[in-house]
């Protein structure tokens, strides 16, 4: 019998994986963007599960809006990444020290 805990713990595991991913890949901007997508997915999982068990569709609408914001975030992030690569020929985080005095 599936309970709400199953889905919430699955979301927690996904969230932990993405936090560790940010930890491990902190030099690689594109993997950082991907782990942010994973993190948003875990949040969406919680929203959908609670919405299903509570019988309230508002949670699913929040997922809808989160998807819209995540899509725009990915588009702008990738555009910044492309511009960065064009100027620096690298996406290594250590190369982004132009604001350092």
């Amino acid at each position: 019998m599936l309970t709400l805990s199953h889905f919430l713990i699955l979301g927690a595991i996904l969230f932990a994986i993405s936090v560790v991913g940010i930890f491990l890949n902190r030099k690689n901007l594109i993997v950082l963007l991907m782990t942010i997508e994973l993190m948003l997915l875990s949040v969406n999982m919680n929203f959908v599960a609670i919405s299903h068990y509570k019988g309230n569709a508002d949670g699913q609408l929040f997922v809808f809006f989160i998807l819209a914001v995540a899509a725009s975030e990915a588009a702008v992030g990738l555009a910044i990444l492309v511009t960065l690569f064009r100027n620096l020929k690298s996406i290594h985080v250590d190369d982004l020290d132009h604001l350092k005095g």
Partner: protein
Amino acid sequence: MNFTDFVFFVLAAILIIAALRVITARNPVHAVLNLILALFSAGGIWILLEAEFLAMVLVMVYIGAVMVLFLFVVMMLDIDQDRLRQGFWRYLPLGVVMGFIIVLELGLVLSNRYFLEMPVAPAPDISNTRLLGALLASEYVYPFELAAVVLLVALVGAVVLTFRGRKNGHHGDPAAQIRVRAADRLRIVQMPVEKDEPAEPQKEEQGAC
């Protein structure tokens, strides 16, 4: 264990393995492909939760548009992979310990009786898409418009960031046209008044254009 549980555990296992591969893959293209697999499995779990519309949106918008965009960008960039994995092994033990602690803490919190014994609410007798559509067009119409504006701003922002101007286009720079002053375009030249009897041919001044 009935069939629904079996499907859930299979999808959850695929989802977790794919998520682990996303953060450990050596090649960014493999990471994107594993992320696509993870999102697809998540869509399957959402169908188990009777959120068909969102599962559909996840597959069509997320996998179909956003992930393909990721794939394009990853394939476009020529990335030095070894340098980008600097510090991976150094931070792995600490990261794994922290991840376990997060899962443990959240697991303890989320496995209490309140969540374990919450019954599933009776499903509404209209389809999920119709339910969401009705809410979106009535109660959430203002956030919906706002989401549209956010998407528009992101679209314009992405174009502005990556646009480099048309090659050999016949367009001027409006900012430069506004900033221009009369002194940049016009040169006033002093000329002596013409005399009646020129002694010798006068040197002609170059006029301004």
